[in-house]
């Protein structure tokens, strides 16, 4: 009687079960996949959290627009130039009224410019913010030497990198047009949409912060008190 023993094939070997090494490789792959997936959860949720906070930003902007109209005067020589200026300079708006509900690190910046020469016609941009460090301060800077024309990216001049923060608003000081900064890579800041620039950009930023403190921006045309 002759028996034929089939030659062992790879399939037959696999059917016999996994070795420890194979199992560890599988677990390792699973661990890598899970860690990649889990890394995305907090990032995504932080963005969701930020969007929820933005609803507070809108409320702050509405308050800020009302207070700016109450405090700013059309007769102020400060508005002689038709470019956006920080209305908080010179206590034109009292410091206490620039805070939201008297809270440190939460408030707004009012930027104003005369929209039509010799008329009581002003453009008002209210930028609400929440500082990462409540004891810190908000800064308004006009950065010269950026690329001009209709741009979707801003070339950051040397020494100004820290002012271009993700989530911040890049504002044309001459027209009041603005776009949110979606990414910063080296000396380039990407914008959420195209923006016309005339060689300079106005930024609202927080020192030593990774992300922009800007919550929301409200733009309006208004008359000021005579």
């Amino acid at each position, binding site marked *: *009687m*002759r*028996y*034929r*023993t*089939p*030659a*062992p094939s790879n399939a037959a*070997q696999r059917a*016999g*079960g*996994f*070795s*420890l090494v194979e*199992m*560890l490789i599988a*677990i390792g792959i*699973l*661990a890598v996949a*899970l*860690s990649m997936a*889990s890394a995305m*959860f*907090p990032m995504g*949720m*932080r963005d*969701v*959290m930020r969007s*929820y*906070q933005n*609803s*507070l930003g*809108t*409320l702050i902007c*509405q*308050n800020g627009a*009302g*207070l700016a*109209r*109450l*405090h700013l005067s059309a007769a102020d020589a400060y508005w002689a130039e038709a470019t956006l200026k920080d209305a908080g300079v010179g206590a034109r708006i*009292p410091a206490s009224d620039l805070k*939201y*509900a008297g*809270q440190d690190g939460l408030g707004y910046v009012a930027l104003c410019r005369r929209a039509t020469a010799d008329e009581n016609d002003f453009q008002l941009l209210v930028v609400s913010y929440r500082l990462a460090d409540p004891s810190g301060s908000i800064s308004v800077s006009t950065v010269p030497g950026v690329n001009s024309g209709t741009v979707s990216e801003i070339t950051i001049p040397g020494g100004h990198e820290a002012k271009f923060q993700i989530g911040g608003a890049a504002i044309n000081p001459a027209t009041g047009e603005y776009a949110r900064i979606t990414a910063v890579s080296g000396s380039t800041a990407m914008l959420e949409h195209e923006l016309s620039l005339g060689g300079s950009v106005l930024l609202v930023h927080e020192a030593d912060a990774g992300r922009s403190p800007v919550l929301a921006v409200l733009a309006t045309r208004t008359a000021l008190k005579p």
Partner: protein
Amino acid sequence: MTHTGTQRQPNRPAARGGMTLIEMLVAVGILTLIMMGFGMILGETQKLVVSSQATMQSNSTAQSIAHTIRTDLRNLSRAGFLYADADTLMFTTAGTVFSITGGAKGTGSVISYGLANNEAAGASGGILYRQGWVLSVAPKDGEDHWNTVDFAQVQTQSEGQTGTLITSLLNYAPGGVSGPTLRVPPSSAGDLNNTWQVLAPNCTNLQVAWMDASGAWQNSGSVTVTHHDQRAWPRAIRLRFNIDDPQMPEAFRDVEYEVVCPIGN
């Protein structure tokens, strides 16, 4: 008996047949550690979701209140009056208004904001209420109209008459001026009559302030202004209040909000 073909090595079947118990325990242990780590991350994510929802709910309520106040103050009429103290705001609005709870129609109304006690069982905090009366002399059924005077008469009242009217209206705050009360959630049909006044439950620390002619905020005592002296009217009204929902995580409770509304701009 002759065997042909490849003979299996005696110890190979054990190696290829699967893992030993120890090997299996090692693999399961490693897998458990990985899953525990993943579970912790999921737990943190869930906390973020809960806090985000709490923030959204709280901000949404505040936005809704701000919208209502701004709309009312946009319709404010200086032909009537405005009264404010540390926790009450009352003023006249002009324009055609209709009763919510009855069939009254008028050419003006009186709106008031304040904080009422919540008498519902287990309730914490107060209720931010908005009461509105249609000013109409035509008697109608309902809880939201004032039958004794219409807006045209308010415009011609003396300061003394307006003061008397304000006192009467303050006394008709839900439950009376000495201790305004509402019940949310309502537990009877009678409670339901007043639910239209509720802007937000779980409110605390309502602070009303008014901006004087110099641009300074005032909140001590009270201010009453009428059509008799237009220059005395406040330039703006500011309401601050806290929303303290007990269902929110502790870190997200008792959030302070502020609504600023210019008058006459």
